[in-house]
């Protein structure tokens, strides 16, 4: 049966919405328009994910398919400048001369929060500014790389993003360049306009090309200015041979925000790549990270932390594809769930036939703080090579009563004792963050989210 036959409410609206993109697509180069059109066609075949998809078994996609959407209007849907500046400012890790972009409901806003575009040697900008007739070698590389880390024909949400993204951004780090400051991308969603039944959709798109022997740190932060947003994001990372790329993503949107995101990463020979994904907010959040180790001696680290309360659903899907010998990967995901919140962790590790001497370690731990909280966790190892070291471990538990009593016996209230232990559980991941300002900001934010007086 064709997927089109079971078109959901959402799928119907996307086709109509695509017509509206003509207004901004008209200003885009033809190569990009063709990409959007091809993606829409892929989306019409694939549709949104359904419960029948193995990859969505634990995460009912109905909250996405049963919502209807609208696109943002650049004037009516923009928060006022002062509100926006404050929201953004709070999230920047560099308070002297921060570099990066603010993207509000899919569009770049210049000058917000003092953020300036990264300086040379980094070359960055709007993908749509790369003209069809450009002979610029960077433009050529961007065009070639865009879409290379996602599979349009298998992934409806990647197709949806590709059809709709407006101000996609590329970050190009030339060979041997070292960009010391983190490049900060702050994505703000939500509109001050009267809320109708439709969620405000935005499709952030980011392409990072780090050439051989270069070094860069990229920080993506997702926040809400107002409720009622749907974010469908795609990030692609091409990390060249011997490059060192650290990627951070903080999702801290409103409790009703829908957020689905995919990141595809390619590592070359000797590449050292790390991803840290911290989910503190959002109502329905799914983060997919797929890393392919395409050269020998590459090192890949995927860390994650998620904190859920209320009836939020936080899903992390990761795939590490060991396609070359002598590589290592380390993965640590931790979740803290309370109330009726739900967590999902799915961690795949593929070790291909010739990826001998692979060293892969995966750990995921969840702390359930209430009887109604729930986590579904699924490590998935597929190992074809025969000389490898692969370990995985999953634990799900509650706070240790002996530890709670020990703290209380020193005078600390039960609420504070529980919060302190929860904070310590999260600290294991937070401590691995290398950007000091981000580490302390997250520390503070996590303490804010915990009940009681810890950290004061």
């Amino acid at each position, binding site marked *: 049966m064709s997927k089109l036959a079971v078109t959901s409410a959402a799928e119907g609206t996307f086709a109509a919405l695509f017509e509206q993109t003509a207004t901004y697509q008209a200003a885009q180069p033809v190569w990009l328009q063709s990409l959007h059109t091809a993606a829409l066609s892929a989306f019409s075949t694939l549709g949104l994910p359904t419960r029948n998809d193995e990859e969505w078994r634990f995460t009912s996609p109905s909250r996405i398919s049963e919502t209807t959407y609208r696109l943002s209007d650049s004037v009516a849907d923009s928060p006022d400048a002062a509100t926006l500046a404050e929201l953004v400012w709070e999230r920047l890790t560099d308070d002297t001369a921060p570099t990066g972009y603010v993207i509000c409901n899919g569009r770049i806003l210049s000058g917000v929060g003092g953020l300036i575009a990264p300086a040379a040697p980094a070359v960055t900008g709007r993908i749509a500014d790369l003209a069809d007739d450009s002979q610029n070698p960077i433009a050529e590389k961007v065009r070639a790389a865009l879409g290379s880390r996602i599979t349009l024909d298998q992934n409806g949400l990647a197709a949806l993003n590709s059809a709709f993204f407006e101000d996609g951004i590329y970050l190009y780090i030339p060979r041997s360049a070292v960009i010391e400051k983190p490049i900060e991308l702050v994505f703000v969603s939500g509109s001050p306009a009267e809320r109708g039944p439709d969620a405000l959709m935005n499709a952030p798109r980011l392409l990072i090309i780090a050439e051989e022997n270069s070094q860069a740190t990229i920080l993506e932060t997702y926040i809400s200015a107002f409720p009622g947003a749907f974010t469908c994001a795609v990030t692609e990372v091409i990390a060249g041979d011997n490059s060192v790329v650290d990627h951070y993503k903080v999702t801290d949107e409103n409790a009703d925000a829908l957020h689905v995101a995919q990141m595809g990463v390619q590592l070359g020979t000797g590449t050292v790549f790390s991803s840290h994904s911290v989910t503190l907010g959002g109502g329905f959040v799914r983060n997919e990270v797929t890393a392919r180790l395409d050269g020998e001696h590459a090192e890949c680290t995927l860390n994650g932390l998620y904190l859920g309360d209320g009836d939020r659903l936080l899903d992390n899907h990761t795939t590490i594809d060991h396609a070359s010998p002598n590589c290592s990967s380390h993965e640590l995901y931790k979740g803290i769930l309370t109330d009726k919140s739900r967590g999902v962790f799915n961690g795949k590790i593929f070790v291909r036939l010739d990826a001998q001497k692979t060293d892969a370690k995966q750990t995921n731990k969840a702390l359930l703080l209430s009887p109604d909280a729930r986590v579904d966790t699924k490590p998935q190892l597929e190992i074809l090579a025969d000389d490898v070291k692969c370990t995985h471990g999953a634990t799900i538990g509650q706070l240790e009563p002996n530890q709670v*009593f020990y703290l*209380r*016996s*020193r005078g600390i*209230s039960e609420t504070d004792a529980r919060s302190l*232990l929860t*904070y*310590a559980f999260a600290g294991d991941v937070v401590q691995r963050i290398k950007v000091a300002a981000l580490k302390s900001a997250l520390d503070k934010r996590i303490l804010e989210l915990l009940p009681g007086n*810890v950290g004061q």
Partner: protein
Amino acid sequence: MALLEITDLHAGIAGREILHGISLTVNAGETHAIMGLNGSGKSTLANVLAGREAYEVTSGTVEFNGKDLLDLAPEERACEGVFLAFQYPVEIPGVNNTYFLRAALNAQRKYHGLDEISAIAFMALVKEKLKILHIDQGLLNRPVNEGFSGGEKKRNEIFQMAVLNPKLAILDETDSGLDIDAIRAVADGVNALRSPDRATIVVTHYQRLLNYIVPDFVHVLLNGRIITSGGKELALKLESEGYAWLEEEAAAVAGAKN
């Protein structure tokens, strides 16, 4: 008024009574030793006083400083001045020792309506206590008890006691598993903190610790009852003659009653 007044305390765990009527009076300035074989109820008594929730008090009363101790939550007991040095101090990965102690001290200060201690005053206090106890400063920045040796854990308990300055310190088998050097170090710490305002209850299996922490009173616990009390010489007699004579005496008493 006694600092601690335990009257006919019956308590147990999981529906099984372990303490069958304990009565004990402890005044400020005194050091009491509670001795007994494994399973006699020593640790149960220590845990009941500290408020461990798994233990259930079925009858009897415990007054501390004029308050009904059994009515208070563990943290309230701590704030009132009860300190339990754990037999098995718990490891708390990810919580820094200094942070933990400051949080505990501030919680106690808040309970008494005092302002939080400043970071500078706190560090001064902590360094003073480390010096008195001859403990290395490196301990401060480590996670609470994580990876500590047995001796380090017990010394960390005494260090916490020194900073929190309780009215009543209960040392639950603080000597168990320690070599003689570690026992001396722990005992020196306890002795350095002796004061006319503070009482100490030393729960132990062996007399050896009492060579270093000399008690004013020794009580022998057997099958959940204090069967005899005396001065420090009682501990020496137990060391040389064992507990068998007491068990026989107790059996004879029980036999006479029947």
